[in-house]
């Protein structure tokens, strides 16, 4: 297995991009990454596209061919495939792209994630989001994705005494970070009061505890480390890439307050990287729902189980805190175009490790981590990056 580096990154603004189609935003992010990597399109040997629900959202499957075609690469007939792992599609696409380069199968590959959610009416979204859960035994029974996370929150509050304020503090922090991120969907800081008083979605989670419906795309160019310096003087190494699964339905899990897929993927990732959780300086985690961040930082080993709430409220995960979590604004403020999220998380970490994170910069960031979760935790993908 060869060492793999990220040599280029690109992303679109996330938000309600009415003027742009999936093809448009995919191209935008891709071209941006190609430019950033200083490569010519023809040097790309394979495409890995993360996308969760293009079939339901825009009646289009076969995104591998679509992206290759619209990138102008159709005459090269290169391999291209859409990777789907629900909301972890982006992270999983990166995982597959990493394997392709690490194994020596390909040299330069593009990993992209894109999702176009606003082409359907918003009341169609809950049912589409539930395809990430157990559609037959959770969705049909009346559960929405928010209600499943709400049940996790309720249980976390019951088992550990986690409070509403502690959970909401993750949202306040992420909006503050988002206000420093030019590509974030929401660039306005908000107060704790706003979060707690927001309209209820599934008690105890309100509107502001839930990531928005977003359009957006992000892309990365990967290359073997041995040739990375030909393209950039700031390559970032991917030191670990691990995926793990757990039961599809939340009700079949061992625990409602712990995502075992996150625990397993991250443990293997730390081991491969030869580091411990405390060595991570900056992390992008999966806050599709605020409680997700609280649980993720525990399951990743940053804080003891049950202490995620107090740690967040006390500011330990702010920029330049004990570990800087979701400096991009997270899914909540940066936006969550489902299949793009996992790739966008990697883009932010690469920016941080290159020292290009501007007003969000974590000082002396050496190790970064991304965690992309599918559904209520049926899939988790963890990547650890290192400044070279």
């Amino acid at each position, binding site marked *: 297995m060869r060492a793999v580096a990220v040599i280029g990154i690109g992303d679109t603004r996330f938000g309600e991009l009415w003027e742009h189609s999936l093809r448009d935003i995919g191209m935008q992010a891709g071209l941006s990454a190609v430019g950033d990597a200083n490569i010519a399109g023809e040097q790309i040997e394979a495409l890995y596209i993360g996308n969760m629900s293009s079939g339901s959202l825009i009646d289009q499957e076969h995104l591998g061919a679509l992206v290759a075609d619209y990138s102008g690469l159709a005459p090269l007939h290169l391999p291209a495939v859409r990777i789907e792992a629900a909301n972890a599609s982006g992270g999983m696409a990166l995982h597959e792209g990493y394997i392709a380069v690490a194994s020596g199968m390909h040299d330069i590959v593009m990993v992209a994630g894109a999702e176009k959610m606003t082409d359907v009416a918003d009341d169609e979204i809950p049912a589409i989001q539930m395809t990430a859960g*157990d559609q037959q*035994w959770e969705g049909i*029974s009346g*559960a929405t994705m928010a*209600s499943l996370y*709400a*049940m996790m929150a309720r249980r976390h509050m019951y088992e550990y005494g986690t409070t509403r304020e502690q959970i909401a503090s993750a949202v306040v922090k992420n909006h503050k970070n988002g206000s420093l991120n030019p590509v974030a969907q929401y660039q306005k800081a908000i107060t704790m009061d706003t979060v707690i008083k927001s309209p209820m979605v599934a*008690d105890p989670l309100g509107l502001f505890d839930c990531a928005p419906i977003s359009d957006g795309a992000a892309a990365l160019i990967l290359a073997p480390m041995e040739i990375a310096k030909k393209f950039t003087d700031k390559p970032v190494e991917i030191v670990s890439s691990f995926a793990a699964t757990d039961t599809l339905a939340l*009700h079949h899990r061992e625990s*409602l307050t712990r995502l075992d897929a996150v625990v397993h993927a991250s443990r293997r990732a730390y081991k491969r990287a030869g580091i411990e959780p405390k060595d991570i300086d900056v992390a992008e985690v999966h806050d599709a729902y605020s409680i997700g961040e609280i649980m993720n930082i525990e399951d990743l080993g940053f804080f003891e189980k049950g202490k995620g709430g107090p740690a967040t409220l006390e500011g330990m995960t702010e920029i330049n805190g004990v570990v800087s979590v979701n400096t991009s604004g997270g899914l909540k403020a940066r936006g969550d175009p489902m299949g793009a999220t996992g790739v966008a998380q990697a883009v932010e970490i690469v920016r941080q490790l290159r020292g290009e994170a501007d007003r969000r910069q974590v000082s002396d960031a050496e190790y970064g981590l991304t965690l992309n979760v599918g559904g209520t935790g049926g899939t988790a993908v963890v990547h650890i990056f290192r400044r070279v």
Partner: protein
Amino acid sequence: MSNPRYWRENPSRYNLVGMRCENCNTVYFPPRAICPKCRRKSLGKMKSYKLSGKGKVYSYTIVHEAMPDFALMKPYIMAMVEMDEGVKLTAQLVDCDPEKVSIGMRVEATLRKLGEEGNSGIIRYGYKFRPV
């Protein structure tokens, strides 16, 4: 219309028919072909098993943004119920005041409408729970 997809689950939806691994005696719902604990040793040993219908609330939430078939009932209570047999499942809690739900509350299964495929489609029925 996905009639066959719903129809084949009627025994589980109407009567909480799951499966029991005769190797380790664990009860599963919905039915599955292989026991995750025993794997190969469970082949041929997974037998149909009807749950008693009784359990307790393991977690719950009050849903304000509803799934389409549940719109008329919002806000409604969704619960994760830990059945007496040990297995958990997800269902709506009916005949219950949202203020009165609590973790540990005893509940029993009842048959209610789950939804329908529009005005001219098939009506789906299945388990919901109510306080004992």
